[in-house]
């Protein structure tokens, strides 16, 4: 079983899908000769040519809008947004158009589109190259929102996204592009969109996370296991629609929940997890539902001490776990 990095797994998934289905094409800024600023599409332009890997104008709303049009015609576009932070110009196309097309036409028109966007902080990117934007979109019926945290999931979920008849927003934890290595199976390796993944079993409390934070959660769980705290870790993977059953089942077992994300606390994705638990797992809860998130400031600041202060990390998570376990 080959080992590879996140970005290699993502590239592999696109390579496989381009080879499998001639309707698939990639469109975005610098995805062609340049192979993408993170090299996610490296080599694909040379291999598949300029009709399959298309350098777009520097204009996100039309990257998505043109993708929608091509999808309506029957193609399977993969749109790359260079940094998630630059997805906002396309907000109207994503929320008003891609997400609502199926419902508004009674299923007559559908948008089989993937939007890939590197997201997240800790890479010295400052306010506009570090954002976590899942909360904006994990609220939009008609969209699916996926965040993988391992190479195997990245490949398998991206392939599923390309084959999905609905629009899928695929946020990639860019800090993990090269940092995270892992095995990738040699089979088709599809991972279904929908189910969360319990990546560590435990009985004392449940840790919910995704993307880079899922790795930190696992590390934190390891740290506190030496102190006798048996944490269960759930990699949410598909944020929208949320996998309510897995989330609730975990807290049924552990009675305590800590949710971790990089995005701001207030109105963040963790709020929905907490709300699900406060309703559906109410009688199982033995402690307040806790959230460890980015502070409520506009985004991750640039200078290193500020960035470090903003970002959750294994030690901060471990500390929150200790407090929760002691509750």
């Amino acid at each position, binding site marked *: 079983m080959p080992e590879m990095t996140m970005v290699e797994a993502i590239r592999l998934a696109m390579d496989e899908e381009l080879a499998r289905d001639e309707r698939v094409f990639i469109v975005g800024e610098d995805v062609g000769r340049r192979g993408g600023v993170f090299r996610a599409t490296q080599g694909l332009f040379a291999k598949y040519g300029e009709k399959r890997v298309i350098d777009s104008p520097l204009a996100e*709303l039309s990257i998505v809008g043109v993708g*929608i049009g091509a999808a309506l*015609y029957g193609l399977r576009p993969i749109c790359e947004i260079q940094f998630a932070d630059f997805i906002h110009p396309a907000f109207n196309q994503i929320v008003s158009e891609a997400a609502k*097309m199926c419902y508004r036409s009674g299923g007559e028109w559908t948008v089989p589109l993937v939007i890939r966007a590197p997201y997240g902080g800790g890479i010295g990117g400052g306010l506009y190259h570090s954002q976590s934007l899942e909360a904006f979109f994990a609220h939009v019926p008609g969209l699916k929102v996926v965040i993988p945290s391992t190479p195997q999931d990245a490949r398998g979920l991206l392939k599923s996204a390309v084959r999905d008849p609905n629009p899928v927003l695929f946020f990639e934890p860019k800090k993990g592009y090269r940092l995270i290595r892992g095995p990738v199976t040699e089979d088709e390796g599809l991972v279904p969109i929908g189910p969360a993944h319990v990546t560590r079993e435990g009985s004392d409390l449940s840790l919910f996370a995704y993307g880079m934070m899922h790795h930190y959660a696992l590390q934190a769980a390891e740290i506190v296991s030496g102190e006798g705290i048996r944490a269960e870790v759930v990699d949410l993977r598909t944020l929208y629609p949320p996998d309510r059953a897995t989330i609730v089942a975990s807290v049924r077992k552990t009675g305590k929940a800590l949710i971790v994300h990089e995005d701001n606390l207030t109105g963040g994705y963790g709020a929905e997890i907490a709300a699900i638990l406060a309703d559906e797992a109410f009688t199982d809860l033995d402690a307040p539902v806790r959230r460890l998130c980015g502070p409520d400031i506009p985004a991750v600041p640039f200078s290193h001490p500020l960035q470090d202060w903003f970002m959750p990390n294994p030690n901060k998570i471990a500390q929150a776990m200790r407090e929760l376990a002691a509750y």
Partner: protein
Amino acid sequence: MGERRSAGRAQRPRANGKVKMASTATATAPAKAAATDLPLLEMFSVMLLARRLDERAWVLHRQGKIAFHISGMGHEATQVGIAYAMRRGEDWLVPYYRDLALMLALGLTPLEFMLGVYGKRGEPSSGARQMPSHFGLRRANVVSTSAPVATQIPHAAGIGLAIKLKGDERVVVTTIGEGSTSQGEWYEGLNWAAVHKLPVVCVVENNVYAISEPQDRQMAVPNVADRAAAFGMPGVVVDGNDVLAVQRVMQQAVDRARRGEGPTLVEAKTYRPVPHSSDDDDRSYRSREEVEQWKKRDPLLLFRATLQSMGVLSEAAEQAAEAKAAAKVEEAVHGADAAPYPDPAVEGLGPVYVEEIHHA
């Protein structure tokens, strides 16, 4: 000639929003010659049907039978001119809410339109999920459209890109109001079409107003078609009240697109003789005299006169067309009146997602 390149003489809307219409005196002569291949009476009938249906919707609204109507009145020549330059069953359309005549020409039935107006089950655009006239018709390659203006332009570019990538010999036409060309969506979509030389024709149905705002609140150029220069594509102004002039300009643009020579921006100058929608009151922003002026250039009257002068439309034929339209309208209203409403458990709940795509 009813059309001209945009660099030509300017047609500057005055501050009060009035536009001096280009004279069409010279437009009909060459049009007649070229028009012989066209099913002129059929075109007239579609325009007439659109007008009568539209009028009836206003009446239904006044009677309190329907909640909302947004009208295509005045735009019939532009829209039927567009339709008769397209290859049915081949070419694609990404329309906007005024395109009733265009939709009828492409196969929307009067009943289907009325089902939409009544918000009844079976309305093909959206199953009555959307407001009326938010058109879409899969069987006629007409893409579902929404309310936020200009979002359809990037879609048209994307369809054009897909046509080109697949090597199909198709063209995609998209329509929009002149006010909506102020949106970045319009700019970005047409820029794509130009950069990639896509088979896209964008028709701006310039009816002088965007709700209350006259053209000069939207742009500092006299013609929307002047904006084509930003993209490096041809921009053409045509008298939107002259169906044959529009048809001819559109045929050139569509043929050009089909030959792989790239997109065209067509501006059809017309007028909206009724309020923006049934929610609007236009007295605050324009005079009755200005509106009355329009009647002299009512596209239906103009086309009737042309057909009469060509000897194509006898009085009997016109009466027959009127009778047929009236019957169709009546039938549609009855059908829609009798039709059931959608059911929350069916049309309400979904589909938010599909499991499989059955088309395309």
